[in-house]
């Protein structure tokens, strides 16, 4: 059974799957804050990324935001259907709205991320 997701302070979630790969997405809070998504750029498969590095960009109505790799590793798969169906991000941010799958290279980095309770506390403290 896949582990519970963990969260980066930059609002990405990551879940370690049974096959040892990690699925990454954007939290429901972040998707809601973006509103009216119009374009998304995903990374190339095979790209090596460092934790905290920008791995793509998303444009909502008149705002462009980056999203970041929660851990270091290699991009092994991207959700290629997502840029053409951006409404999926809002409908199912923790399921069909996933962004990329990574092969983590530094598994210890996962431990430094926020659990659900800590992330919820972070969201509560965000300026509105």
């Amino acid at each position, binding site marked *: 059974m896949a582990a519970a997701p963990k969260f980066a302070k930059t609002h990405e979630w990551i879940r370690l799957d049974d096959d040892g790969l990690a699925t990454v997405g954007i939290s429901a809070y972040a998707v809601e*804050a973006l509103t009216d998504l119009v374009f998304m750029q995903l990374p190339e498969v095979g790209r090596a990324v460092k934790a905290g590095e920008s791995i793509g960009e998303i444009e909502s*109505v008149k*705002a*462009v935001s*980056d999203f970041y790799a929660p851990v270091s590793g290699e991009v092994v798969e991207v959700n290629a259907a997502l840029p053409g169906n951006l409404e999926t991000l809002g409908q199912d941010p923790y399921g069909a709205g996933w962004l990329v799958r990574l092969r983590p290279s530094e598994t210890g980095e996962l431990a430094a991320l926020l659990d659900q309770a800590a992330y919820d506390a972070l969201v509560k403290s965000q300026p*509105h």
Partner: protein
Amino acid sequence: MADASATSGLVAWWDEPAPGPENMAADELLAAEALALGRPLVRVYGWSEPTVSLGGFQRLADARAATMIAGLPLVRRPSGGGAIVHGTDLTYAVAVPRSHPWGGDPQVLYDAFHESLAEELRQRGVAAERHPGRSRAAGDEERFLCFDRRAQGDLVVRTAANTTDGDKILGSAQRRLRGAVLQHGSLLLEPPPIAAAHPGLLRLHPAAAAWDLRHLVTAWLTRVAAEAGGPLDTRLDDFAPSRAALMADAAARFRNPAWLSRR
């Protein structure tokens, strides 16, 4: 450089006109400065020649196909939104740390600048208001020019000739960086030669031609600063990043064809 000890209010620079890449580079460095100082910073500026700035993800092919802008220099902004033909507008960039009350919900920062200008203009007899519509009108992203689009909070002036959407005079767009938000905005003063359908403030309110533009902007930003809980600190010298080499590097990046053709 700004005084880091006072973190409320607003520091604003009035910069000389510059080419597109230098303007974008200065704005990017403004964001780094705002993050370092922990306070909002504003840069108000012009363009050394008529220039088209594209939104961060607009297609270059669409710009090439827009024959009305043929021959004009192009620069791609880091911020989103539609293309702007600069030359008859006044451009501003505001950079805000993400930890600032304006660094959360994107609409809050739009509204802080747009409503403050609306208040100042209404006091001067201009029927300016924020566009009330939904955050994006249907098909809006298909429209190439920013001033053909209407988003929630855009500043419009309703006239007898345009009672539905109103004529847009101020639009803004953001780039949400890791530690800061950079917002670009354009106040249209007169119609761009290639887009005469956008009248701009001076056509909509001819009395505005007699106004001291710098006085108007100062009054506007003083209202914005009050929203941020402090005074307006105006710098009449150019915004000069502490390391000139950073500026040159950043401008080279915005001049790089790979940046312009990224989509």
